């Protein structure tokens, strides 16, 4: 039998070049890929939305998002992804698939998306200006506040977008994109932000 040696790499391994990009001077955009996370899709089974909500509250101590928003639990973020479904984003295996399976037994179907998505954090003075070129969602702070989320499309690619906690008084936008589309979207973001100057990095920690 063939001997497989799986080498886990980021889908942006090739495209991401750490350092400055585009216009010189003070960068208007910080683009950071967050690596090594656990992501589980939770979808209520038919007629079991109530049971799923109860299980979520018991396990995470917070209610599951029922409208487009991202809810912060103690060590996980629950992100709305559609009616009666959400994503659990966490680190270190505490809320990985095998940990959540007994929690949602009978109430929801789970699917491990940890290596199926890339997570990109967009921040800086020009974060909103950059995303405005790619998205038709109104990201004005009056409409899209901290914790707001959207299942939407950017550059014809489905993304999950939500606003995290502000950093240094500036908005932070998080993007989950299908792994195989990540490189394409990454280049599109860089093209859009080149005029502002970009600082590119990757991190193992959530912002």
């Amino acid at each position, binding site marked *: 039998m063939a001997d497989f040696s799986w080498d886990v790499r980021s889908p942006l391994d090739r495209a991401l070049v750490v350092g400055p990009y585009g216009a010189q001077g003070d960068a208007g955009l910080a683009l950071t890929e967050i690596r090594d996370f656990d992501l589980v899709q939770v979808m209520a089974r038919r007629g079991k939305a109530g049971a799923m909500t109860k299980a979520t509250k018991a396990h995470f101590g917070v209610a599951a998002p029922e409208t487009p928003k991202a809810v912060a639990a103690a060590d996980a973020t629950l992100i709305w992804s559609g009616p009666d479904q959400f994503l659990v984003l966490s680190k270190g295996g505490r809320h990985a698939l095998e940990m959540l399976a007994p929690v949602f037994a009978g109430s929801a179907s789970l699917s491990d998306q940890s290596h199926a998505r890339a997570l990109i954090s967009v921040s800086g003075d020009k974060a909103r200006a950059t995303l405005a070129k790619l998205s038709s969602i109104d990201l004005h702070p009056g409409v899209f506040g901290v914790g707001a989320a959207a*299942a939407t499309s950017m550059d014809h690619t489905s993304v999950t977008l939500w606003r995290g906690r502000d950093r240094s008084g500036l908005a932070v936008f998080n993007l989950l994109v299908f792994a195989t589309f990540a490189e394409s979207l990454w280049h599109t973001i860089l093209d859009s932000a080149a005029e502002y100057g970009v600082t590119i990095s990757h991190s193992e920690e959530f912002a």
Partner: protein
Amino acid sequence: MRIVCPFCGERELGEFTYLGDAKPQRPAAGADAVYDYVYLRDNVAGVMSEHWYHGGGCRAWLKVTRNTLTHEISAVEPAAGAGAAKVGA
């Protein structure tokens, strides 16, 4: 054209895919009835009930009431089975 998704809010047309007439119901039996259900469609000039798929967003099926002459949308509701809460709860 924009569609107000009952789950996501107002979104551009590019996020949606058109399926077609939402009126025909799958018949229980009968070759002729099944033939009509599969192939025969009204070519409505006016208000029509249609299925749209929000594939670029929440991935829910929607039932949209649209005027095919003016593109005016008068109602959008989740299609049967969209989400788990509404079915057999």
